[in-house]
């Protein structure tokens, strides 16, 4: 038995590759229950892959993934449905069923997974829509919603079944700063009100530092975990450069940017 066996949510030596491309090699971490944890990392670092592994949507090449004290890597797809009943997932693009209205999208998992009666389902859906500020959007189709509204509707669908763990894939991407802050406040509110474990995949450092109890930083040559305070105090240069990116001229030159030299104005006269 290892520490991961008792964990609420943990990776233990997980290895993941898509064909020849290695994403993780022996990745281990654990997230606490009823807290907000954030997975940070650059593009292509495997943040969304980690989330999909927790949801059992893909299988690791090696290692163990523990969800609510159960190793899910040995479960069949049919057995995973029992585990997924404890999970809610906010997909990056929302993944709302586009043939259904917002109301039907929220009612769908309740009809499929619970024995609630029609009136109870309607009450639960309206209560959840009110919580995310979409009370008047219940009759709209996903195609009629803005980007921020889609995220909120998808978040509402993810929490309408009152999951134990909420997985959020890039909840702030593609949103204006106000909408992003609104989603952030909603996640904090959901965590406090329903005591749901929230795992957020993000590359937004400032929101991470505000809301996270635990942070996992995925780096090209490994991963570092800790509280926001521990990471900010870290002397590890990889963590420091990720949390405080200093894109000075030297750094830009290093990644291939061409520095523009001041010169004579090039206006219409040049033509």
């Amino acid at each position, binding site marked *: 038995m290892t520490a991961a066996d008792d964990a609420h949510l943990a990776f233990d030596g997980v290895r993941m590759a898509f064909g020849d491309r290695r994403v993780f090699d022996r990745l281990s971490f654990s997230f606490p229950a009823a807290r907000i944890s954030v997975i940070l990392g650059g593009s292509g670092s495997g943040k969304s892959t980690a989330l*999909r592994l927790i*949801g059992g949507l893909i299988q690791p090449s090696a290692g163990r993934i523990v969800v609510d004290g159960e190793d899910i890597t040995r479960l069949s*797809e049919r057995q995973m449905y029992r585990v*997924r009943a404890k999970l809610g997932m906010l*997909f990056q*693009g929302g*993944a709302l069923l586009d043939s259904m209205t917002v109301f039907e999208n929220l009612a769908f998992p309740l009809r499929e*997974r619970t024995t609630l009666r029609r009136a109870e389902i309607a009450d639960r859906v309206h209560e959840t829509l009110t919580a995310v500020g979409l009370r008047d959007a219940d009759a709209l189709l996903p195609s009629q919603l803005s980007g921020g509204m889609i995220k909120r509707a998808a978040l509402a669908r993810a929490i309408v*079944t009152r999951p134990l763990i909420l997985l959020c894939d890039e909840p702030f991407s593609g949103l204006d700063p106000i909408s992003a802050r609104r989603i952030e406040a909603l996640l904090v509110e959901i965590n406090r009100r329903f005591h749901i474990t929230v795992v957020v995949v993000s590359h937004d450092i400032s929101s991470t530092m505000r809301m996270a109890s635990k942070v996992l930083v995925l780096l090209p040559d490994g991963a570092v975990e800790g509280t926001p305070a521990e990471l900010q105090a870290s002397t590890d240069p990889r963590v420091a450069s990720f949390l405080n990116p200093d894109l000075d001229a030297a750094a830009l030159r290093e990644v291939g940017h061409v520095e523009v030299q001041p010169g004579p104005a090039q206006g219409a006269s040049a033509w």
Partner: protein
Amino acid sequence: MVTLVADLGWAGLRFVEELGRMARFTAGIGSATVRRPIRIGRFVDELFKLGVLSLIIICLCGTAVGAVLGLQGYNTLVRFGAADSLGAVVGLALIRELGPVLTALLVTGRAGSATTAEIGTMVVTEQLDGLRMMSVDPVHYVVTPKALAMIAVMPLLSALFILFGIFGGYLIGVRVMGLDPGIYLTSLQDAVDFPNDVAGSLLKAAVFGVLVGLIATYRGYTTAPTSAGVSAATTSTVVIASVSILLFDYVVTALWGV
């Protein structure tokens, strides 16, 4: 030379691997068909989308094909003094061959490609993963009603195509060429044998329904999650299903003499 043999070997392995995946997918549909909840509402929705929305194209094409058969058949038969057999020629050609095959090709182009595109788009927009995360099996909820509806509508549409084809042949043979309507219908009635011709025709159409249903849903379900992937999957559905229909047409005809 060695490279060529190696490439052929890999291609063969990939083909067998793909067949294995498709067999597992088919078994998944089979098990989902009898698993509760039975999704009658979804099945009826698909019947409407695949069947009712294909009615106009089937009726129109059936009439046109029957009219062409009537015209060509009359012009040929009249040379041998056998114009009275026009009903038999039109009827047998439509019932035994053209009805099921052309219906299957038309349904592939209209409904098969739409099925692949719809499921493929659900893959790209992560709707199928969304269903899995809600503990709902996408094969049970999305794929099975579509595949079963395709199997159910194909014989019905084929029968309708044949009916309108016979009507098209009647229009040309009787109304345009002046053949006696009684002779046209009697010749048709005498030539067509119900158990062999009509039941065989419906069986052939059902086989095509299974083919198109499986290919369209499988290509959609295994779409690469990009817009180009959806486009490629839709194209491959039309190509693979069309070729399979023509190949299986020969197989069914050779095996059962339909």
